[in-house]
């Protein structure tokens, strides 16, 4: 709370204009920002406008785009059932991430954040999947989920149980998305756990201690003290998780290519299929614009929704 009074001063400093000193400061700030701004414009902003341009054409990706089709691509995309499946899968992955992956990460963070014996070891183990490249993780899961019990680890264990049959984890349209989600969770829970761990470390022991002295039990302590104080970390985690889910590509592409029959399609695999397999880069660009808009709208909406500044909720 002591840091609060300092904030208005910073604002005041910024407003002061006119003095040569400030002009020179601003110039230097500008000069230092310049390389980053140029790179940003070049590699982020320019391609976005290029995509918008190409999305208006029926273009194969080779040579100049000449077949102008206006908004035809955009219309066709929302009429395409497969895109709607991809969209639905995106939201399913978001829901699963928020209600399964993040709570799991939080639970583990609380566990290894405490004075658990061997917690450093567990922290390392839990974080390890995140360090692996996505491609390696996907290939590993391909082996683990192999439908042949002689080759796939999970099925090898399953058939030992009485009355349980081997499952085609990636070959069954009903369960393929869950299988992919399991791999996704395995890959990313460590990352969110680490975020939560940092958040937990920023909560002063005294607050929880005070709660305990006042007679709060472990659950009360967690839900009424720890969780509210973690709010800003949770907000970040949710934000990263949602955007990551919307853009999920590598793991899905390697494990299933969005199949069987589009059952695990995501917007990114859909975009890739049109841009690089079917040579319809104009259409693919239009998909990219949709993805961009969805992410943008979410970001703006989310930031407005959670605009409460961090210094009021965190400590």
């Amino acid at each position, binding site marked *: 709370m002591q840091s609060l009074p300092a904030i208005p001063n910073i604002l005041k400093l910024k407003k002061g204009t006119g003095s040569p000193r400030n002009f*020179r400061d601003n110039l*230097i700030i500008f*000069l*230092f920002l*310049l*390389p980053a701004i*140029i*790179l940003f414009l*070049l590699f982020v902003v320019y391609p976005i406008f290029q995509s918008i341009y190409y999305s208006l054409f029926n273009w*194969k*990706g*080779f*040579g*100049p785009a000449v077949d102008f089709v206006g908004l035809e691509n955009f219309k066709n995309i929302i009429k395409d059932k497969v895109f709607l499946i991809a969209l639905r899968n995106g939201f399913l992955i978001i829901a699963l991430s928020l209600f399964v992956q993040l709570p799991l990460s939080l639970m583990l963070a609380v566990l290894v954040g405490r004075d658990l014996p061997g917690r450093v070891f567990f922290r390392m183990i839990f974080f390890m999947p995140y360090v692996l490249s996505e491609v390696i993780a996907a290939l590993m899961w391909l082996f683990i989920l*192999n*439908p*042949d019990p002689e080759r796939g680890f999970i099925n090898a264990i399953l058939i030992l149980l009485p009355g349980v049959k*081997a499952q*085609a*984890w*990636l*070959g*069954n*349209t009903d369960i*393929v998305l869950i299988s992919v989600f399991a791999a996704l969770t395995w890959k990313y829970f460590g990352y969110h756990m680490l975020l939560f761990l940092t958040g937990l470390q920023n909560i002063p022991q005294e607050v929880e201690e005070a709660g305990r002295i006042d007679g709060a039990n472990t659950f009360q302590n967690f839900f009424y003290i720890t969780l509210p104080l973690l709010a800003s970390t949770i907000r970040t985690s949710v934000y990263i998780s949602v955007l990551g889910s919307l853009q999920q590509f590598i793991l899905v592409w390697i494990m*299933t*290519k969005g*199949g*069987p*029959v*589009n059952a695990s399609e995501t917007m990114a695999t859909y975009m890739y*299929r049109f841009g*690089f*397999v*079917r*040579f*319809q*880069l104009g259409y693919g660009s239009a998909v990219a614009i949709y993805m961009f808009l969805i992410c943008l709208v979410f970001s703006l909406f989310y930031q407005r929704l959670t605009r409460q500044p961090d210094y009021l909720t965190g400590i």
Partner: protein
Amino acid sequence: MSRKIYMILSVLLIAAFAISACAPQATAAPDRPAATDAPAQPAATDAPVATEAPTEKVTITWWHISTADEHKAVWQKMADDYMAAHPNVNIEITVLENEAFKTKLTTVMQSGEPPDIFQSWGGGVMNEYANAGLLKDITADLDADGGAWRNTFAPGALGVYAYKGENYGVPWDMGMIGFWYNKELFAKAGIAAPPTTWTELLEDVKALKAAGITPIALGEGDKWPGMHMWAYLVTRLGGKANFEGALLRTGSFTDAPFVEAGNKLQELIALEPFQDGFLGATYGDEATAMGNGKAAMELMGQWAPAVEKDNSEDKKGIGDNLGWFPFPMVEGGAGDPGDAVGGGNGFAIGKNASPEAIDFVKYLTTAGAQQALVKINVAIPVVKGGEVGMSDPLMITLQQSLAQAKYFQLYYDQALPPAMGSVINDSVQGIFAGTLTPEQAAQAIEDAAKQELK
């Protein structure tokens, strides 16, 4: 003091700005003009290379997809031998797995930088590249010295690599798809002879299932393996006239044979003849199942034995137990039972290829080079004299079936434009998964045809 530092920093930053501002123009600019200019005046860009090259060191980039150990070694040896004979030439080989190759090639093509020599199946995809000016026209090289190089090839195979009468690549293998089967497992199920009709095939599938054997290995996650089954049914049911009608737009992909093929396929699928999880399996999984003797048959091209061997646990495959029979005739079909669906492998030449690269491809398609491939059973030769030393009885049977075919149908996913090939692959997978009816699949293909075959 501090002023000086500011000055220096400012100068540095302005310099950085200038450099980074130049860079984009340098990289972005050639992107478009190159692609537009190339097709218009290829002669102008070719000429100087031809005169300068012999004196300088030349690097040839070569992408192939022959991942099987034996085959990879043969290509490597050919490159090594060529480099030894031509010290100024350096050949950089990139070996890529089939699916990875397709992806990577598309990316470099879209950036306008094709490798000098790369795997190609000819047909629609190659035409697309040729149309965009990304390939080199080697017609003149083929016709040089009175067509010395051209005349070594079987004309049909070479034709697959021609677009509007100009050749952009050459074949090194041409074969057909058929059923590879495990004789031992067939015997175990009490099947005396391989099936010759669709009904017999269905009966054999039932017999194999009854004996507890997986009848057919299928990597339908990759889509193209199952697509060939549908394509063959279409060919048997409709014959040449049917497909050509649809292609030339006098007919349609919703014509009876295309739908009926889906119905026949459903008859087979209803028997559940495939290994568990086939919808998510890759071609690699399919070859592994065959190579390890876990499945009785697979429908695949001439490369199947080599891949089965390489994917099997003991790297030997099923040896002499492997047999081959052509796709059975379908009762009442208009197609000739001898008609073949197939295709082969070849090398396309990228637009920036040097004369040395073309000379090296010439070397790769000599009778001697073909014999080296024949020796390890990875190719059906397309060059006269290449068949010398062809000893594998299965390969000889396959080659003879191919030679006798009255009508040869190139793989659908290669004969047609990529967007259509991809739709066919996706739609047929839908039939396999039971999410699309034969009518819906045919309609989806026809919709794509309306777009692509104008």
